[in-house]
């Protein structure tokens, strides 16, 4: 009976080719849209995740200056200073911390021979490469010994290499930073652009002490970057750091912080949430088109029931029960759902790849999304098929036989 009905349904679909195609199109577009939109949303999410983790994961960035209760905010780096001792205290007293990298930075002109380039020079500690997830391409990172001796050594990014050393092989050569000679001891691996379009390879790292005392003549820090051991302890570490710094800076109870701790994990969570919302929104909009497709199925099924009233009457006279007729029409609706779902999946996956190929947007085709969309389209076939099928099954055989 079931195989019989499927055969009859497919038969009927072939007989009315144009009508079947248009009905299918509604479901195909719906399913394809759901899959393409969710792929796009998932792509956005993956992109955000990649961008943020390329900054380094589980980072807390502490900068001087804080929000005031009036809403006015002092510029970063003014007012109370962060010091190297603050950084050391954090490293010593706060649990759950992997690395602490204090840093200062300033923009300087770099000169090698007749080449020059202006870049941000950052004075920091050697562990910065771990925090920023850099690799050393060639040579070495400067060491704690260099830090103690305020050595004039520098580690440079690929962009600097390209601009200052067109002949290559910079390790061991001298670069003049703000006229002072520095020996290049290492080159960083290529990292590319960051999320906001910054060139992450346009960096020069020198020892913190060298930068503070020999270049800038300052004792404070612009920033302390802290990497927590994992996501679970990062919020606790943040709270501990805040308490510690308030104590060290003698901020009174109820007074405003004179520093700001930015939590990149929290930032990532927020952006992930945004991406999820976008995905959901896109998916929902697409789902509406699937719903419209379903209404198309219902419309065609109703037409089909009216058109075949006489056939229904004949079948009933010959002994078809309510369930026989219901099943026959439900299967027809479901066949449309299944065929539309399969074709829609093909189109949707194709559209996702085409989208990332032509527009450069990242898309992630989700198997779950495909599964859900196909199940959903079959469900829609069932849901929108049940009313016409019931209508057919409830027809009175005498009236149906008389129908012209």
């Amino acid at each position, binding site marked *: 009976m079931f195989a019989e009905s499927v055969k009859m349904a497919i*038969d009927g679909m072939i007989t009315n080719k144009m009508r079947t195609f248009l009905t299918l199109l509604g479901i195909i577009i719906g399913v394809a849209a759901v899959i393409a939109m969710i792929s796009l949303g998932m792509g956005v999410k993956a992109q955000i995740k990649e961008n943020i983790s390329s900054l380094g994961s589980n980072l807390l960035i502490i900068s001087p200056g804080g929000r005031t209760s009036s809403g006015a905010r002092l510029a970063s780096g003014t007012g109370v200073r962060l010091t190297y001792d603050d950084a050391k205290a954090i490293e010593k007293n706060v649990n759950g911390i992997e690395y602490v990298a204090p840093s200062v930075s300033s923009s300087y002109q770099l000169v090698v021979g007749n080449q020059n380039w202006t870049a941000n020079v950052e004075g920091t500690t050697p562990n910065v490469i771990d925090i920023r997830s850099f690799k050393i391409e060639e040579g070495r990172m400067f060491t704690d010994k260099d830090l103690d001796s305020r050595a004039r050594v520098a580690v440079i990014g690929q962009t600097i290499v390209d601009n200052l050393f067109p002949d290559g092989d910079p390790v061991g050569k001298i670069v003049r930073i703000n006229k002072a000679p520095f020996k290049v001891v290492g080159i960083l691996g290529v990292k590319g652009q960051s999320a906001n379009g910054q060139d992450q390879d346009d960096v020069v790292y020198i020892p913190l002490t060298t930068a503070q005392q020999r270049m800038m003549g300052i004792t404070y820090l612009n920033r302390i970057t802290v990497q927590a051991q994992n996501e679970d302890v990062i919020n606790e570490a943040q709270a501990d750091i805040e308490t510690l710094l308030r104590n060290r800076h003698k901020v009174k109870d109820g007074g405003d912080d004179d520093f700001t701790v930015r939590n990149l994990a929290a930032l990532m969570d927020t952006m992930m949430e945004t991406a999820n919302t976008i995905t959901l929104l896109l998916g929902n909009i697409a789902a509406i088109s699937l719903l419209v497709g379903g209404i198309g199925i219902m419309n065609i099924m109703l037409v089909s029931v009216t058109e075949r009233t006489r056939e229904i009457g004949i079948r*009933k*006279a010959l*002994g*078809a029960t*309510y369930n026989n007729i219901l099943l026959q029409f439900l299967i027809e609706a479901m066949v449309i759902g299944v065929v539309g779902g399969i074709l829609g999946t093909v189109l949707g996956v194709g559209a996702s790849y085409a989208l990332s190929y032509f527009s450069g947007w990242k898309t992630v085709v989700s198997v779950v999304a495909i599964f859900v969309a196909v199940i959903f389209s079959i469900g829609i076939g069932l849901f929108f098929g049940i009313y016409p099928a019931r209508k057919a099954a409830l027809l009175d055989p*005498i009236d149906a*036989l008389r129908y012209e």
Partner: protein
Amino acid sequence: MAVIELKDIVKTYQMGDSIVHALDHVTVDIGVGEFTSIVGPSGSGKSTMMNIIGCLDRPTSGQYFLDGKEIGGYDDDELAKTRNQKIGFVFQNFNLLPRLSALLNVALPLVYAGVPEPERLKRAQEILASVGLGDRVHHKPTEMSGGQRQRVAIARALINQPAIIMADEPTGNLDTKSSYEIMDIFRSLNDDGKTVVMVTHEPDIAEMTKRIIHMRDGKVVQDEWR
């Protein structure tokens, strides 16, 4: 032995404000192997009687025994099953499914009887051969003449070996020659012991049956044995 027993059957319809008595206390018995025609002008209730005998409709009151069983309390699905197993229908306008071949049309009642496909087709083939259409099994109804279509319909009525064959104006859409051919088939079926009940308004067709029940205004006015 009576295969059809109608006892005091009443069927009323609500038509706007008035109630129409389509059947007014009808009591009729039809025995096994009879060849009966029901005649009467339109509005006499013969179609309603046909629908009730054919288990397409239920009486408002009275009892109907088909093959010894009371049909009155049956629900829709039980009536469908009864139609499938006990009754073979032949209609004025043939009522074949246009998209299906003669073979599949004839096999259709067996689909609902749950007979497996190979057996269905084998039986349909045999029955079609017996009505003289053994060489046209794969033709569609639209490719056949009226007489041939009606023979397909008769084959379909016969396939589940029903207790009675109900024919509703079976010659109404046929020319005279085809009409006589169809009546010959009915007569030979009756000779083989089948019970045939036929509704018609053509006197010459009714003449060919063995019993004529005349109806008027929902009542049996004359029951003529020949």
